[in-house]
């Protein structure tokens, strides 16, 4: 007979999903690349080649950084997952803590990087370079955000879209403040970014071995 118990055959590591500790999908990086391409083309039409090259490099830095850090993270977490499959409870706890620590470091580095690009570079380049460059920064930061969000939320499309909208709203408010508001107002954004970073890191801290298994199984 056909048994409903058959899904037992699917153990972690045997699933098609990337065996990362906090999720992640193979499609994220190419999707982001596809997403940023039209904006890059737009820039080519708007600006001289020398300017665009230097601006693009700066603008794409967070994306490249995010891509490299995510790739390294996925590789590391895959290895950790292999170890986890063999580990007893105590060892599993150790592997989990180790991976969580590494994940926290990556998140912190990425958030700090985004913060610098968003709040300092953007401000500088808006005043010096104008809107096209700002758009580059905006897209690259948003892309990075989407990538990180995708990893944290296991590539859940709804969460990713939500994150995308929030990021854009945030950036547009920032843009309005830079062009129209008082000079001190943009400073509120680095502050709120720091607060957000604190919240995210706290959330990672709350993530324990039980939550990890619940995510893996679900």
């Amino acid at each position: 007979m056909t048994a409903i118990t058959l899904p037992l055959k699917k153990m972690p590591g045997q699933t098609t999903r990337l065996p990362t500790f906090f999720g992640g999908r193979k499609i994220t990086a190419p999707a982001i690349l596809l997403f940023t391409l039209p904006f890059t083309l737009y820039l080519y039409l708007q600006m001289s080649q020398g300017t665009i090259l230097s601006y693009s490099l700066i603008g794409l830095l967070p994306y490249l950084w995010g891509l490299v850090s995510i790739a390294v993270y996925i590789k590391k977490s895959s290895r950790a997952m292999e170890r986890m499959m063999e580990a007893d409870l105590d060892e599993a706890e150790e592997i989990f803590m180790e991976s969580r620590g590494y994940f926290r470091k990556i998140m912190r580095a990425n958030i700090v990087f985004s913060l610098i690009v968003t709040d300092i570079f953007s401000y500088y380049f808006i005043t010096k370079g104008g809107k096209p460059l700002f758009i580059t920064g905006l897209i690259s930061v948003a892309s990075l955000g989407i990538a990180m969000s995708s990893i944290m939320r296991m590539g859940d499309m709804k969460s990713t879209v939500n994150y995308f909208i929030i990021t854009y709203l945030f950036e547009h408010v920032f843009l309005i403040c830079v062009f129209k508001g008082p000079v001190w107002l943009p400073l509120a954004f680095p502050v709120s970014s720091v607060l957000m970073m604190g919240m995210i890191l706290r959330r990672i801290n709350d993530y324990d071995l039980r939550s990890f298994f619940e995510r893996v199984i679900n």
Partner: protein
Amino acid sequence: MHLNVTLISEGSYPTGKGGVSEWCHSLISGMNDVRFNVFSMSSENGLRYKLPSNVEKVVVEHLHSPDFKHGIDEKFAGELIGELKPALSGTPLECEEILRLSKRREFTAEELLGSDVNWNNAIAYYKNNFDGKAFAPFYVFWTSLFYLLYKTLESVGKVPDSDIYHTLNAGYAGLLGCLSKLDKGGSLIVTEHGLYLKERSFELSDSGIPTWLHGMYEKFFESLVRTSYKYSNTVTSVCRDHTRFQREIEPNLNEIKVIYNGIDTEKFHPPNPSTSKDREYFNIGTVTRITPIKDILTFIRSAKHILKKHRAKFYVVGEVEDEEYFDECKKLRKELGLESHVKFTGFQDSLEWYQKLDVFALPSLSEGLPLTILESLSCRVPCIATGVGGVPEILGEKFLVDKWDPEGVAKKVSWLLDNPEERIKAGVEGRKLVESKFSLQRMIREYSELYEEMI
């Protein structure tokens, strides 16, 4: 006033195809004076049958990957989950108490799974039994077992009220039958087509699950089976062979009624005499789902042996249930160079195929009373099959082979091919046997009588 029966299925009718589903459909179709409801726990979507007009209600509890929800009242979860602990020691559950507790408030399986109690129980059980072993496989395993158990408890309220609850196996469906009977009143019939415990053991051997977890799995399902037996009014078996095993599991089991499966002999009839089977080659076939328990690999290997002596084509008629196993079958077919000789037809009208066959072969590793053997005999196609379950109650010794024995299958199939008179005689006698002992009318009559006894 019509008698009302709720059939409770697990992974079969009406969302899946296969012997149990066909049996179920025939039972309902053959009892026009009985009103049926069907409750199905299934991971499949969509109905695979056009339901007969005497089916009043169909409820499909769709199963998906376990989800964890937090925030349930932990005291409540603790009491309810506490009552399920005997499941880990193989002893029957106390369904009255489980039902009483589950009535106290609404809950979902996901909430029970996400409770602290579930996690803490898992940790405690792991430390007591498997400390030092890999934790990840254990916890995934624990979750698989308990998620379905919690889902069963959650489902009690969704089972339609009936005079009789008739479960098609003794696992989760059996437990749901017990709880429904106690909840709403009525009688409980547990019919075992395959032996649930044996099938779960087979599933384990094929799963790659660490062997140190096997005992936990076996105890868990032993508990469900014994619970089903304990609360049933009658346990029915599809063959005598199974009753021995059922009594080993539960020596206190009062009565096990054997009701052989039956098939529609008018539908499964021999080919028209004008349809000649004169061809350049013989047709050998099996009608079955493609899944390891049916041992299609042995069927393919036997083809290699048969082809040494005979010109023949081989057909596997049935849908793919296990993709990995199907890949294994195709790989073996390629390795043996049989790609032009062995065909996988997918799900098709089996009658057409029986009528094209010269010999039917079923090398299954476990069976109840296989409808496919009865159907092929009814079409006057002789059968070679493994002597498992109720098969020896249909076929004589000279048509039986051992498990995992492709040469044995080939030898007996070849004997039938070499001796056309024996082949025809086996077909004619097979048809007579089915008409006298395994007809659908007889099966329907016996179940009707059983239903009458229950009220």
